[in-house]
């Protein structure tokens, strides 16, 4: 929950107090999203070491708050959902949101018991500790079991959104 300035009776808010309010409002209205109905080109995830980008073009997200846990800082709320199928029964599939080439947030996982049958996974996460700045976001797919192939094709869909949550 955001920390907001308190205004004593008969106190005219100062410019900095208003600035704090508008900063938090700006962050609270800061959403980006991506939606793909039918995944092209087809994604075939085999190795357990590689996260595959699901959206082929990045989605630009500008974070206004800093990485602190106090006033001035903000977190990032993430919701992801995607459908896919596996070639080998008993395959673990992970969905993540990639902020930079070295920073990803795991959001959802599904253990798929049945092969060659589409399933959908979805998850919610709040990412902390990211500094203010501009990020190129990708939703990513991992074949966590590294067995067989996890496929997303034109019979599947993937969508996600993020929003900034001020402290």
């Amino acid at each position, binding site marked *: 929950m955001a920390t907001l300035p308190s205004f004593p009776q008969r106190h005219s808010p100062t*410019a900095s107090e208003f600035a704090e309010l508008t900063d938090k409002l700006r962050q609270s*209205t800061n959403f980006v999203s991506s939606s793909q*109905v039918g995944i092209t080109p087809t994604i075939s995830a085999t190795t357990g070491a590689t996260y595959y980008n699901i959206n082929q073009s990045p989605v630009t997200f500008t974070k206004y708050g800093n990485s602190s846990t106090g006033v001035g800082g903000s977190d990032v709320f993430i919701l992801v959902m995607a459908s896919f199928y596996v070639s080998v029964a008993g395959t673990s599939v992970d969905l993540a949101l990639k902020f930079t080439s070295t920073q990803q947030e795991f959001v959802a996982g599904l253990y798929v018991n049945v092969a060659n049958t589409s399933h959908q996974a979805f998850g919610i996460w709040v990412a902390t500790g990211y500094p203010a700045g501009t990020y190129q976001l990708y939703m990513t797919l991992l074949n966590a079991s590294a067995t067989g192939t996890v496929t997303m094709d034109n019979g599947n869909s993937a969508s996600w959104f993020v929003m900034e949550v001020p402290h």
Partner: protein
Amino acid sequence: MAASLPALLAGQNPNAAQLAAILTALKAITNWGVLCLNGTASATITGSSYNNINGGTLTWTKNGSAAGSDVLVIGGMSGYGSVSTFPTLFGVNVASTDYDLAYVYLNPGSAHCSLMGTRVLTGLGAGSLTFTPRAKISNGVGTLTVDSNDTVTIVVAELPK
């Protein structure tokens, strides 16, 4: 994208227009609508065109103009196909336009599966909007059924620019 808000200078008292911009953004971010049909939705759908899922619609008022705000939609459904390898699309109809939300092949026939998706709708004007849950079969083969064992959900929120 975040809302455009006034920059307030040191020693400056906000004017009425600046305060109005702040209040407009506040009103928008608290403007959410929810439809949840838990066991009360029904549909028997054939063909490759969108058809309504019965049981309810979501009526919601958008405060901002088309240039002033967009609409975030999160929606999902469950159901089953009459045949295996059943390509199912779920979407919403708003202002006479269908918007795709999710696409899943329901592989086992006669087995309930769920699908959900999210997207941002742009270009919708201010005023009352009705969101109708819809579904279709991509290849037009077989029948999609939604019954008392299924759930249909739509959530909308206003995103000020």
